[in-house]
């Protein structure tokens, strides 16, 4: 064959045309929705084991199971399997009204017994629930008609928020007791909008719509969720038309594709990026901490490194959280940083030195952000040495209180309560806190059991103000989750970061 330039062009055009005939999914009406998901699903039990507390998996669980209380896309609670809930007057009991007329995927009736059993099961230490310390604050669960009552062992004002947070799922008592843990893994049954039709570990899950779903039948009758952990492969999946929706790709790729053949939605989610400050070495000097906070130009970092996809924050609360207070700010002022450092005898010529730890590639541009911050710090008289660590090492070091003076981390808090953001991050006695100052412990302590909600939230706002004023932690940004999708799909983003197929509609 004489291959000249013209014949090569013809051949290329023919190849492209031939290939395009095979995969025109974007242009056709979508019959079966295909989602390229960024994580795999190791286990189907949403209440025990590591998967149960993995925030990125919750969207898969919520497609099959219902939580006790429904969480709306703006993080606010709404009636779900529980239609009403509350405490008695002296806060010694909780009560929950259970929705009637709901069916499990196997056709059996959902009852208040299921709710009581689900709550009691995760409260038992032997179950292996990672959140047993929360569920164990309730005991003696009992059913009265379509109500579930439980005694309060220790008052926790956030207990109902946990009912739409990690491990807060209702499982079928009769079915689970009949098939056991292994049988449940093989054939999970929930009350959620979709039923599991086929599951291949590490590969995909195929879901069928639950036509009897109490919240209304989902629009897409069949949904295939492919587990595509590599971001480049996920982008290729939607770009080629093999998948209709995907999430968590580099922002550059999102920008490249969203205005072209694909549509996109990028909305803030409840995850934040922050720098833990450990109360050791030079971080015991308030001038150093405050200078480190004032020297960071968060907005420029968001604009330059993340393409503007991020929301600058100055406390550990995002605007969607209950204790967000817009009046608490930490200004970017390198001049002030220089002044503060000078007061402690430091300058660009005689910099204060410490180590900062960071992940690399765990979150978008994490390492690059820290590089930029170190560059900004250098200008004012802070010389920070970067150490890259794996996220697993971060957890271990944090639990042992052995983090470096500064350590980058990302924090998720999809219920938006201050206890699960500022509280757990900053309360010294918690094994996951890094700053152990007595003053902060005294401020936070009374808030754990505060029954007056307004007073409790105001208390947390005061804590946030104190933390910001004393630079006990450096909040950086609220992440934005990029979702690419075919023009034929309308995707409703959820502020928790969960990608939920039952919230997707045809355009």
């Amino acid at each position, binding site marked *: 064959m004489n291959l000249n330039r013209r014949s090569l062009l013809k051949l290329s055009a023919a*190849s*492209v045309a031939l*290939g*395009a005939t*095979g*995969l025109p999914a974007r242009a056709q009406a979508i019959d079966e929705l295909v989602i*390229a998901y960024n994580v*795999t699903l*190791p*286990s189907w*039990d949403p209440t025990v*084991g*590591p*998967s149960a*507390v993995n925030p990125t998996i919750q969207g898969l669980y919520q497609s099959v199971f219902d939580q006790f209380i429904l969480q709306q896309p703006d993080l606010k609670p709404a009636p779900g399997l529980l239609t009403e809930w509350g405490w008695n007057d002296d806060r010694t009991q909780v009560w929950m009204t259970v929705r009637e007329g709901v069916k499990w995927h196997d056709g059996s009736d959902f009852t208040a017994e299921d709710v009581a059993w689900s709550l009691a099961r995760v409260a038992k*230490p032997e179950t*292996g629930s*990672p*959140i*047993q*310390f*929360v569920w164990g604050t309730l005991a003696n669960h009992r059913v009265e008609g379509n109500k579930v009552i439980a005694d309060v062992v220790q008052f926790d004002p956030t207990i109902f928020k946990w009912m739409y947070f990690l491990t807060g799922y209702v499982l079928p008592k009769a079915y689970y007791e009949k098939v056991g843990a*292994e049988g449940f*893994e093989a054939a999970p049954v929930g009350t959620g909008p979709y039923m599991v039709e*086929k599951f*291949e*570990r*590490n*590969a*995909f899950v*195929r879901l069928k719509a639950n036509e009897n779903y109490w919240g209304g039948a989902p629009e897409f009758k*069949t949904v*295939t969720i*492919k587990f*595509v*952990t*590599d971001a*480049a*492969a996920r982008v*290729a999946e939607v770009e*080629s*038309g*093999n998948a209709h929706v995907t999430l968590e790709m580099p922002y550059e790729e999102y920008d490249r594709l969203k205005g072209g053949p694909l549509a996109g939605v990028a909305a803030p989610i409840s995850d934040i990026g922050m720098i833990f400050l450990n109360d050791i070495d030079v971080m015991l000097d308030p001038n150093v901490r405050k200078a480190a906070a004032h020297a960071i130009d968060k907005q420029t970092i968001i604009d330059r490194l993340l393409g503007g996809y991020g929301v600058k924050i100055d406390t550990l609360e995002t605007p969607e959280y209950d204790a967000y207070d817009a009046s608490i700010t930490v200004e970017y002022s390198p001049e002030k940083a220089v002044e503060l450092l000078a007061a402690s005898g430091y300058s660009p010529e005689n910099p204060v030195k410490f180590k900062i730890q960071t992940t690399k590639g765990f979150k978008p541009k994490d390492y690059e952000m820290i590089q930029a911050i170190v560059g900004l710090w250098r200008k004012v008289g802070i010389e920070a040495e970067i150490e890259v*660590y*794996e*996220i*697993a090492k971060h*957890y*271990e*070091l*944090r*639990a042992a209180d052995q983090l470096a003076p500064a350590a980058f981390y990302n924090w998720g808090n999809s219920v938006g309560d201050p*206890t*699960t953001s500022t*509280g757990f*991050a900053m309360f010294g006695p*918690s*094994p*996951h*806190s890094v700053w152990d100052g007595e003053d902060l412990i005294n401020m936070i302590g009374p808030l754990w059991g505060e029954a007056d909600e307004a007073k409790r939230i105001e208390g947390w706002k005061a804590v946030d103000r104190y933390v910001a004023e004393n630079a006990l932690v450096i909040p950086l940004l609220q992440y934005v989750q990029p979702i690419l999708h075919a023009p034929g799909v309308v995707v409703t983003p959820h502020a928790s970061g969960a990608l939920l197929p039952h919230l997707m509609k045809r355009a």
Partner: protein
Amino acid sequence: MRLLRSVLLRLATTAVTLLGVAVIVFFVIRVVPGNPVAMMLPPGATEEDVARLSALYGLDKSIPEQFLIWAGGVLQGDFGTSITARQPVLALVLGRLPATLELSVMALVIAVALGGVAALTGTRLRGTRVEGGIDVANGMALSVPDFLWGLVLILLFGVLVPVFHISGRVTPSLDLPFTTNFYLFESVLRLRFDLWADIVSHMFMPALALAIPLAAIIGQLLKQSLKETMHLDYVTLSRTKGYGENHVILREALPNAILPTLTLVGVQFTFLIGGTVIIERLFSYEGLGNMAIEAVINRDLPLIQGIVILFAVIFTAVNLAVDLLYALLNPRLRHA
């Protein structure tokens, strides 16, 4: 008799090797940072919660104690339970092994075919521009790692000319009548060529990505061996007998020249299986390598142990098989 003694000796050393691997892996993954319980517990958990879950997963005991418990279980066929999947490790690992084996074998077949054709063509047309072109292509294939070839293939055949599937092992909507996890093999046995085509269209890109660097190695080595053999007296003799160049290369030179390549293919096959870790991840192929990465990320200690032990078994088995095959093919060793 000597061969049998040699085999028995190799089996004994294999057992010692596996024990060594087990000890090293067990201790190393417990010493490196990343405690699965620390990863599992959310903020707010107390020291009691840490202790409770550590006891639940048997991590509260000393490492030697944990090892003895684990080794005792292994001797009875119990490799423990995966922390993340909450399933028996042995079932999980054996369930994924066929996928990885099929991918590796397919990659090997492609590599041998590409490398063999390149070597034979290069030898036949030695000294011409074609040989130069093959050498350049070999150099490129070797200098680019397999995962980058994977990305190039995804771009070419997944996006620009989308003829192959980018991820997975089989189309989710297909009903599979298989009783084993050897999908490719069983689809042929059942004469289900529709399924076979689907499986191949999923496997082709990851297999080719794995095969390209190996094909270059095979091509280079085989061509070199062929060139050296072509100068030997018996080859010259066959030429003087009037045999054509193709006959001389294929019938006379190749049988001798192939022996070093065969050893290399055996050794490289084990590396090929190791290479599936990255490639399976890239193509979301549901094999052992993909599972290994998940296990490491989640610090699923029992699963990591199970996968590493299985990889070690495969490596030693393949090496043993290659040695035996080499002994059978090489008359000097066979009659030694």
